């Protein structure tokens, strides 16, 4: 790992000032992706701005019917939160399935979605549950937040403060983890809100997380696994790598989506 200047601001304003003043600064939340990347010298920031001392970024609460999770809330905290379990059990279950226990004790929701790894779990939750990302500058709808592989709508000096989740009528997340890394080969979040269904898919897309509009239309008409039985995403738009071909992932998407619908209705 190359050396860097370390900053640990105790307020959002100080964090924004630190990152804006750095030559090539990076923000570290839980560090579960950034630190391994720096160890491999794939990233070599001049400055690291640690957000762990900023009280405004922590905590889980309800704002009416909306679940608000602070950016620095760990996966373990989300997984074990009675508030999250009462609002959207699928979200607590998703957090419980990320990585391993030690990663869940450090990794954060804000870090995960800011990184936007194409095989991460949280992007599927934020997009599928139609969440709003609240930042130091604005509110960003999930549909506008994820812009491609490791790319988001966030500006260089813009920090995620919290993520706000509306309450779905029904929701479930099912993934097929890579047997070695536990990253999602395919993960599908299905959410039913009033009469509309959202289907968000992670792990499979060439541009990261995306919505499956045909499945959404079929499930909005009939929220049952049978309604998407014969539906397969075209393999041309999906990832192919050493872990699986695009055709394999296409097959997995339908299977995981059917299981998610069954779990949501069961």
């Amino acid at each position, binding site marked *: 790992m190359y050396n860097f200047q370390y900053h640990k601001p105790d307020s959002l304003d100080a964090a924004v000032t630190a990152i804006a003043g750095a030559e090539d600064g990076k923000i570290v939340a839980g560090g*579960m992706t950034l630190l391994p990347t720096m*160890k491999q010298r794939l990233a070599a920031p001049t400055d690291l701005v*640690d957000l762990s001392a900023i009280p405004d970024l922590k905590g889980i609460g309800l704002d009416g019917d909306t679940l608000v999770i602070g950016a620095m809330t760990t996966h373990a905290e989300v997984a074990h939160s009675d508030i999250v379990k009462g609002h959207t059990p699928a979200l607590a279950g998703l957090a419980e399935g990320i990585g391993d226990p030690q990663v869940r*004790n450090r990794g954060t929701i804000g870090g995960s979605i800011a990184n936007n790894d194409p095989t991460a779990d949280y992007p599927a939750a934020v997009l599928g549950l139609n969440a709003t990302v609240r930042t130091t500058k604005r509110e960003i709808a999930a549909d506008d937040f994820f812009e491609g592989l490791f790319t988001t709508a966030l500006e260089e000096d813009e920090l995620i403060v919290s993520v706000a989740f509306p309450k779905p009528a029904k929701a479930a997340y099912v993934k097929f983890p890579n047997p070695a890394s536990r990253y999602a080969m395919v993960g599908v979040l299905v959410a039913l809100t009033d009469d509309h269904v959202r289907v968000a898919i992670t792990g499979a897309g060439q541009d990261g997380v995306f919505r499956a509009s045909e499945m959404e239309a079929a499930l909005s008409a009939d929220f049952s696994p049978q309604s998407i039985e014969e539906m397969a995403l075209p393999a041309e738009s999906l990832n192919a790598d050493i872990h699986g071909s695009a055709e394999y992932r296409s097959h997995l998407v339908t299977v995981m989506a059917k299981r998610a619908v069954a779990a949501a209705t069961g």
Partner: protein
Amino acid sequence: MVSISMTVNGKAVSGEVEPRTLLSDFLRVDLGLTGTHVGCDTSQCGACVVHVNGRSVKSCTVLAVQARDDEVTTIEGLAAADGTLHPMQAAFREHHGLQCGFCTPGMVMSATDLLQTNPDPTEAEVRDWLEGNICRCTGYHNIVKAILSCAAELRGHKVAAE
């Protein structure tokens, strides 16, 4: 260099480190606490698991500066002052939950964290919890048995070794 201080195994410690110094290196090199092992150095194997503020973390993926002012417990901090082993250490010995022993410190630190939140885990829950701890010798069988035995003992039931 940055000045840091923290509490390690109940004692106040301090040192001068580069910001890039890993917590695992600070423990092993600066403090001489070599019970924390570094296996893969890529946050996968779990040999380096320690507790920070009571929760298990991979110390090869935490910067020493990030643990400034925190409470850290390593494998050296588990046994009592008179040398009496922690029940989890005793269970690993009783059930021979190791072979070469390299992964053992991380296994023990991870397992003690599990029992903090789940004092009565099923075998499946133990195996699931060990997702981030890799052992290349044992096939996990006796490790799982040791953890289940320790959990039972802490709940007041003694389990005989085979």
